[in-house]
């Protein structure tokens, strides 16, 4: 069901939803290859996004500087001080001049300073102190906060604590920049890298879950949205797919006089051989050395 929005006629919502189906399929057609339909949606989307960004930046500024309350008067209530940030903000426009170009740096400098100061305090408290505190208060003897014995059950909470402590220390050593990873430090960084990989694996598993959820959301939109009991998506999906196929065929049948690439792609064999990623133990476990012989589907 599409609820009517304010004074916007319900028909409008239907058109918008139909557009939504077409946009969905056109964007999915990108998975096949970059094509005129996906390109059109892309350009439309970028245009809308630029205005949308402007709108919410404008809205944020207006609601901070202009509309206040009796307790917190802003410009609308006669608090003139708020004109100051507006004036400084206008210095951004010197970006368009050649001579006074550098004046844009003033608002940037103010904001950067504020953010740096805020970040220092936030980082040290929640990312440093609280995390170290959380590590040293892990249960190792006696009972856990829930009243279970630390060395009972499987896996015992005490063992978990020890694993976390070892993990934190070894991964931290991995990030040392000015010491060579040799000797005991080398062992530690190696263990640290295993921990990092386990972390990344857990992250990857979680992400797969999230991404499948997104697809599910989209598919439920396609399959379940109806307008007055008319499940239009069932009819529109084939039409949209046919559009994609037609455009694909049309593109293929066009003479190759206007190659869509910047430079004519050379045959792969003459390409610079992909220089080998160094086998040094570092950021990457085993670089998924892509088969660069595979050409893109251009």
């Amino acid at each position, binding site marked *: 069901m599409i609820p009517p*929005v304010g004074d*916007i006629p319900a028909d409008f919502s239907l058109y918008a939803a139909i557009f939504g189906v077409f946009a969905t399929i056109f*964007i999915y057609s990108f*998975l096949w290859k970059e094509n005129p339909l996906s*390109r059109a949606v892309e350009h439309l989307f*970028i*245009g*809308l996004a*630029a205005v949308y*960004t*402007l*709108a919410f*930046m*404008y809205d944020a*500024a*207006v*609601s*901070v*500087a202009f*509309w206040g309350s009796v307790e917190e008067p802003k410009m609308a209530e006669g608090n003139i001080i708020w004109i100051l940030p*507006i004036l*400084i*903000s206008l210095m951004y426009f010197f970006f*368009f001049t050649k001579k006074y170009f550098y004046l844009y740096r003033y608002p940037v*400098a*103010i*904001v*950067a*300073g*504020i953010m*740096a*100061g*805020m970040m*220092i305090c936030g*980082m*040290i408290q929640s*990312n440093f102190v609280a*995390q170290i505190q959380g*590590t040293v208060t892990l249960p190792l003897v006696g009972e856990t906060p829930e009243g279970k014995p630390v060395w009972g059950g499987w896996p015992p909470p005490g063992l978990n604590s020890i694993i976390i402590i*070892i*993990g*934190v*220390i070894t*991964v931290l050593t991995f990030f040392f920049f000015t010491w060579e990873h040799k000797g005991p430090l080398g062992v530690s960084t190696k263990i640290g*890298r295993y921990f990092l*990989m386990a*972390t990344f*694996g*857990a992250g990857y*598993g979680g*992400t*797969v*879950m999230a*991404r499948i959820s*997104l*697809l599910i959301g*989209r598919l439920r939109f396609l399959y379940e949205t109806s307008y007055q009991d008319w499940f239009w998506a069932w009819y529109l999906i084939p039409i949209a797919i046919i559009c994609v196929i037609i455009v694909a065929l049309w593109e293929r049948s066009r003479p190759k006089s206007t190659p869509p690439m910047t430079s004519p792609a050379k045959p792969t064999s003459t390409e610079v051989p992909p220089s080998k990623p160094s086998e040094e133990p570092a950021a990457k*476990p*085993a670089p*998924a050395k892509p088969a660069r012989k595979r050409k893109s589907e251009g």
Partner: protein
Amino acid sequence: MSVVVKRYIPLAITFVMGILMVIATYFLAPDTDLRKGTSYITAAVDVLVATAGIIGLVVLLRHHGLNISRRGKYWKYSMITIIAVILYLLVGINAIATHEKHLMYAQEFFSWVYNKVYAHMDATIFSLLAFFIASAAYRAFRLRSLESSILLVVGSLMLLGRAPIGGAVWEGFPTIATWLLNVPNTAGNRAITIGIAIGAISLAVRQLLGVERGYLGPER
């Protein structure tokens, strides 16, 4: 002189604002007037950068306008962008002119376009990830070394444990997934978090002292 105005004054401003925020956090007690004063400075950030949205729009229009006038590659698509900008901007300006609180975003038609047109494209592009993640799983997860095997095994166990089917097959899977999330994952993420905190503070120091290059325009 000019290098002072161009470079040193902005750096000095950055330094002063940074120190001010640190002082406000540690030394100004909450609910005092001074602390409130600094909360107005933080609130003003959004006003300070507000004009940048216009700069972005102008840069975008200039790029596509030039492309059309030169009949460059894909100039027809550039027209789509420009038409979209103009139409949506008109809706927005109409919103400012008619809406009582002068908020573009709260205006019905403006947010209607967002919710009913824009949001579909947004969610669809996001869901492309489900496909990309499938192909990444297929091509990149290989048992090359002990390290990549750890990544692969942990990832697969998480997949089994976090979906209902894992628990239906063997009830151990959810337990293992929760353990992986609570123990090794916590350890790794915590160390990364601590490392990032130190790195970010070190970058902030470089920045406040004005030695980080590539920021605020290098020496000119």
